[in-house]
């Protein structure tokens, strides 16, 4: 690890590729583990059917602004923790009965399915998936029958959700894995992924699920507007260990039309990886998201190969993981450096508030695979001013040697710094508080719009700092078996008065409005952004 570079101030202009960072310096992030003191005591347990999964979901279900937490337990019941932290203080969680204590859970994704202003969750399971309707005060009830949600009986391992144009009800894609009844020759037995679209002519119900054929053992899915056409496509990362004739997939999901795959004729390039997680972020500030795909050994960082003037881009990507220093293909410490790594959840967040997204990757052996690192520390890859990344997991204090799966990066104590929770297979989940010093400014926003899709899934939030516009797509999906809804965090570096606008899911754009850095804002459609503060 070239730690020295982490401390460097900005280099000379000739080396800089990142216009956002010219005047910034890279602060080394620091985390302290507060698992026990915070009251977190949950492990993801189970054997073969639970070698994948182990997600975490973060959402605010008691309307206090603090993200609450659901941790999948595998064969153990999932555990719900209400966030009892004080602003800026040590993290505190209280395990609380919520109705979410389901066995067989591999993960969960939170969002407001029925647009009633209360967060709901879809819990993925080995067996029937269960839609859990939020009742308020962090209580949930089963809603499969109420919403016509067919939970199936597969081994579910991925989810993505969107609101198709004009729809009053969401569309949910569920990724399913191996046919677990196939004991001797499970390879090639991938079960169908399902697309749950709104029922026609019936309010507040899903139609019967549509199989997405072919399916190739999905471990991560994301509805994402990769081409900025205004209509998200469904990107699926598949585990090549189990498919035959498969590859990574990009589905065209157009309202009222049957899903179709992007093909080589469209520009889509055949890629076969042990796909386990997707993270996306517009790293190069060109308006188009980059995609990080986790795998075994090398991971991928994809950027559009060509963005033609005046025409939509084709879905052809260049892998820049090596050039950017994010292959993360083997451990950087711990004694197992001679073996390749195994990567799962990934997420981009700016952990040091310098205006540049950093990358967290959860690592962990599949299950005693001796050719892969057994001591496989999580990565915290900090983006440098030249747009490359440097490993900081060890110095930041998050280099756990447990067998990680899912994770969530969010600001649990509302101090402007992104904290971290990691779900471990066969071990306790771990919680770290971000205690970095001398970080830059930040701003966090929560979107609200009237009617359907109140959280504005599919919107793009743009934050301007100086000449640079940071863009985040608001999505449900990706990562590994878990997601976050609520505050969207932007690091600002030295920018004290950033500007913000929202490109709402229907394509309309708000005006730019100036914000005060280091504040939380509620952004209601058609209204000025309002500062929010914890009671």
């Amino acid at each position, binding site marked *: 690890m070239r730690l020295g570079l982490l401390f460097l101030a900005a280099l000379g202009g000739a080396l800089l590729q990142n216009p956002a960072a010219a005047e910034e310096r890279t602060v080394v992030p620091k985390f302290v583990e507060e698992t026990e003191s915070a009251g977190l005591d949950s492990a993801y347990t189970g054997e*073969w059917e639970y*070698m994948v999964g182990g997600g975490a979901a973060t959402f605010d279900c008691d309307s206090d602004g603090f993200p609450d937490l659901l941790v999948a337990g595998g064969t153990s019941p999932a555990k719900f923790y209400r966030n009892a932290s004080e602003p800026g203080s040590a993290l505190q969680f209280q395990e609380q009965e919520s109705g979410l204590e389901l066995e067989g859970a591999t993960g969960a994704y939170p969002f407001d399915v029925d647009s009633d202003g209360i967060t709901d969750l879809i819990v993925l399971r080995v067996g029937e998936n269960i839609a859990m309707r939020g009742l308020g005060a962090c209580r949930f009830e089963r809603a499969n029958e109420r919403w016509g949600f067919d939970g199936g009986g597969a081994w579910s391992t991925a989810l993505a959700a969107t609101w198709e144009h004009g729809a009053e009800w969401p569309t949910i894609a569920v990724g399913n894995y*191996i046919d677990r009844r196939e*004991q*001797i*020759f*499970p*390879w*090639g037995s991938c079960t169908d992924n399902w697309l749950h679209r709104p029922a026609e002519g019936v309010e507040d119900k899903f139609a019967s699920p549509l199989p997405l054929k072919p399916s190739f053992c999905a471990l991560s899915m994301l509805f994402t507007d990769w081409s900025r056409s205004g209509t998200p496509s469904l990107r699926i990362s598949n585990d*090549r*260990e*189990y498919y*035959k*004739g498969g590859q990574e997939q990009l589905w065209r999901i157009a309202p009222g039309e049957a899903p179709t795959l992007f093909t080589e004729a469209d520009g889509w390039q055949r890629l*076969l990886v042990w796909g386990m997680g997707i993270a996306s972020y517009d790293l190069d500030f060109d308006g188009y998201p980059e995609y990080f795909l986790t795998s*075994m*050994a*090398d991971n991928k960082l994809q950027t559009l190969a060509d963005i033609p003037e005046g025409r939509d881009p084709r879905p052809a990507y260049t*892998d820049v*993981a*090596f*050039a950017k220093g994010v*292959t993360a*293909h*083997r451990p950087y410490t711990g004694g197992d*450096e*001679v*073996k*390749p790594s195994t990567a799962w959840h990934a997420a981009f967040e700016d952990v040091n508030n310098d205006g540049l997204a950093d990358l967290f990757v959860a690592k962990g052996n*599949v*299950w*005693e*695979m*001796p*050719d*892969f690192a057994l001591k496989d520390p999580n990565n915290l890859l900090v983006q440098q001013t030249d747009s490359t990344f440097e490993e900081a997991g060890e110095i930041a204090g998050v280099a756990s040697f447990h067998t990680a799966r899912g994770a969530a990066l969010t600001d649990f104590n509302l101090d402007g710094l992104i904290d971290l929770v990691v779900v471990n297979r066969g071990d306790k989940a771990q919680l770290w508080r971000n205690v970095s010093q001398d970080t830059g400014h930040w701003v966090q926003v929560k979107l609200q719009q009237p009617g359907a899709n109140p959280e504005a899934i599919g919107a793009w939030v743009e934050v301007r700092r100086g000449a640079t516009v940071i863009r985040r797509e608001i999505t449900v999906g990706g990562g590994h078996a878990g997601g976050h809804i609520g505050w969207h965090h932007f690091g600002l570096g030295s920018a004290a008065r950033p500007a913000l606008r929202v490109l709402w899911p229907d394509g309309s754009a708000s005006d730019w409005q100036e914000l005060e850095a280091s504040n939380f804002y509620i952004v209601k459609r058609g209204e000025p952004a309002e500062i929010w503060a914890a009671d």
Partner: protein
Amino acid sequence: MVRIRHILSATIVVVLTLVGTASAAEPARGPDALRAWYKMVLELVRHTPTYSPPVASRSFAYLGVTAFEAMASGSSDLHSLAGQVNGLTATPLREPGAIYDEAVILDAAMASAVRSFFGNTGPTGQRALEAIETRLSERVSAGLPANVVKRSRTYGRSIAAHIFAWSETDGGATVENMGFPLQYELTNGPAHWVPTSTIGQQQTPLLPKWGENRTFAMPDGMACPLPAPPPYSEEEASEFYREALEVYETVADLSEEQRTIARFWSDDPMLSPTPPGHWISIAWQVLDKQEASLSDGVDLMARLGVSLADSFIRCWQSKYEFDLVRPVTYIRRLIDPDWEPVLITPPFPEYPSGHSTQSGAAAAVLTAFFGDDFAFDDATHEDDGLPARTYRSFEAAAEEAAISRLYGGIHFRAAIDRGLEQGRCIGAYATALRTRI
């Protein structure tokens, strides 16, 4: 030349009376078990991360010898390979006068050997191994006296243990980081290999010491030598440049049929049973169609496995001796900086083509076994959506496998042609093994 012997009626119970040993076997149980184990092995090769083509070839050799010796130990027909292949000593003897069941012996030997060679496979492979072991064990031992089953199983395992102990000393038993060394010093100069991808793990070449492994039927790793490749040159009139231009122009004008051929023989590790597994698969398709006897099955698996393993040892020795640059590096440097080959360039030196060498060897063994001009269909990749292809002979298939590397843009002509020649030479050693009494 060994010719196919057709299987006897499945309903006949054959009692083989050997010198000092009595054995009972229902013919169908043995071939079924052998076939089932190889089907599993072809999946495990694909799904075990260390199984690059050289590593796969090694296991095919030891598994083939295990099955062969398990059967030869009680056969009046088969002749042990002990003393013929390098370092293999006489296998354990059976109890004089005791009754054994050949299918149980074979199943136990294969179960034990597969467990040994694929002990590092992932959780799904382990689960599959446990399931198939239970199912086959129940099937082959059904209706047999318990003492015969126990004795046969113990004996089969002792054969596997003997072969595995032999394998431990060949130099190829330990594979770290999927075969990519952490440190490797590149040879200076434009003629030599440099990394061809941006995969972090593949910035060093695959298994640079593999050519030093103990060979099987070849006397050593220096047998079947190759002439040097055309002298490196950047002159447009040079043979080297012409060969590079041939790759470039072939890829530029690739027909759909050529593209299909390139993909059919791509045989990428972790995405297929690998090139040696492809030939094992071909052999099984032919054995099945011929309803081959158990003796022929184990004979062919031993010979073919040995020839494939020798091929990779010899080929790898040559690769690192000449350490030649890949077409993608040369073409991008001198002809077209944006050039992309059809196939992913493998992460090791170019000369000779490993697929060509091992295909030449495999074809030599299969031709000796089944005869010249033996037409067959190859459906190895049907599950992956690639339709079966038909060949008029094993040699024709080997030639197509070899030229596929030109269509794929990953080898020059010399590596292909000479690789095939090297393979034929290597195959002759396996063909010369005495397997029949």
